[in-house]
């Protein structure tokens, strides 16, 4: 594996974006930073600016207002980047599946690398999802 990719997997800085979630998933994401779970062990930091980020964590049901912002942020993130969908809403729109305001699920809008289900997912589930993401990137690189 190249040094570049190895370093990316050793220090993935995450940018956290809510596209109209009920705030539960966002609180669980913040829980990952607390002493009990401490994702800085794996080198993950919460980036304030999208230009510093490697991983885009997306929660919420992608409503019409936020889809514009979501696309703009996805264009601004420096490549190589990864996208993680967190929570039922961003996976399949959850209870808003018949809503007039949520026309498409997230993975029809931008490519998603890993899905973390749950309403909301536990911090353990989020960490397990990120570990799967890292393994997936390693495996895909191994095939090529």
């Amino acid at each position, binding site marked *: 594996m190249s*040094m*570049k*990719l190895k*370093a*990316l997997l*050793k*220090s993935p800085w995450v940018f956290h974006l809510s596209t109209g979630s009920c705030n539960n998933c966002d609180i669980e994401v913040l829980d990952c930073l607390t*002493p009990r779970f*401490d994702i*800085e*062990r794996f*080198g993950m930091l919460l980036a*304030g*600016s999208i*230009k*510093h980020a*490697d991983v885009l964590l997306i929660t919420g049901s992608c409503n019409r207002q936020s889809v514009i912002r979501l696309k703009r942020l996805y264009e*601004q993130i*420096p*490549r*190589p980047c990864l996208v993680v969908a967190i929570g039922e809403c961003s996976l399949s729109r959850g209870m808003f599946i018949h809503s007039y305001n949520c026309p498409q699920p997230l993975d029809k809008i931008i490519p998603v690398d890993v899905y973390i289900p749950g309403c909301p997912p536990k911090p353990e589930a989020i960490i397990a999802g990120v570990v799967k993401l890292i393994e997936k990137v390693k495996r895909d690189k191994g095939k090529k």
Partner: protein
Amino acid sequence: MIYIFYLFVYGFLLTAAIGLFASWFDRKVTARVQYRVGPPLFQPLFDIIKLLGKETLVPSGSSKITFLIAPVIGLASLIFVSTLLWLNALNPARTFLGDLIVVLYLLTIPSISIIIGGFASKNPLASLGSSREMKLILSYELPFVLALLVPVIKSNSIRLGEILNFQAQNGVVAGSLSGFLALAVGIICMQAKLALVPFDIPEAETEITSGPLIEYSGSALALYRLMKNMLLFTLPFFLIIIFMGGIRFVGIHLLYAFLKYIGLVALVTVIRNTNPRLRIDQAVRFFWGPMTIIAAVAVTLALLGK
């Protein structure tokens, strides 16, 4: 040729290695203060390598050349300062007239490069952060220069090497009352120069999302991060040289050098973990009020020979 060797090996490689270690130490101590585990040892190095491999985006409408050259200017001047300090620490006879002043103004250039980069990036938050950084420089430079006057008065010289020789013969500057006060002012000013809490007003992660650096990505951001990590070595090293008798690489003195440096870094970390962020007007009032008065008292005491 020998100077290129010094510039590259001592000024860049050694400083960067110790700076990255200090950055890890800072993050680890922060994590332990908060009852967390903290990052592994090579984390800062992996951050830099990762950022070097990422895409560098230049915002449209920004001044492209200024935007990309600003981090290079900051890093280059910092490498010069580190080389000067290493040369004096290794052999005090290699000093020249007024190198203290050269070090003083070259140490300001990393902050100025951050200001230039922030203004060049055409982002309102970056401009806000840059203007705050400028006010912060104006506020801390006055007490910092006053504090540096104390070793100059005591050793009656503006050469770093002679200040070191003076301390080798007459004991460290920080041992006297005026020297101790000046060192305390110097440490607080170092905190502001490093832009760490309580003086992280220009960056203010939660408020203006890393301020001047907001538009930087990829290798340009890597240069800025490396610069900040190296600054975490250079500034304590400067204070050690002028206040605490420098470092020597023989026998037990190696342990003393390590303890002096780690002590200063740990002090910086503890200050940053136990304080809230100040507002910019509070910071200016703090530096121009109490800090300048303490530094002036220290200078007066030094003139009286205390």
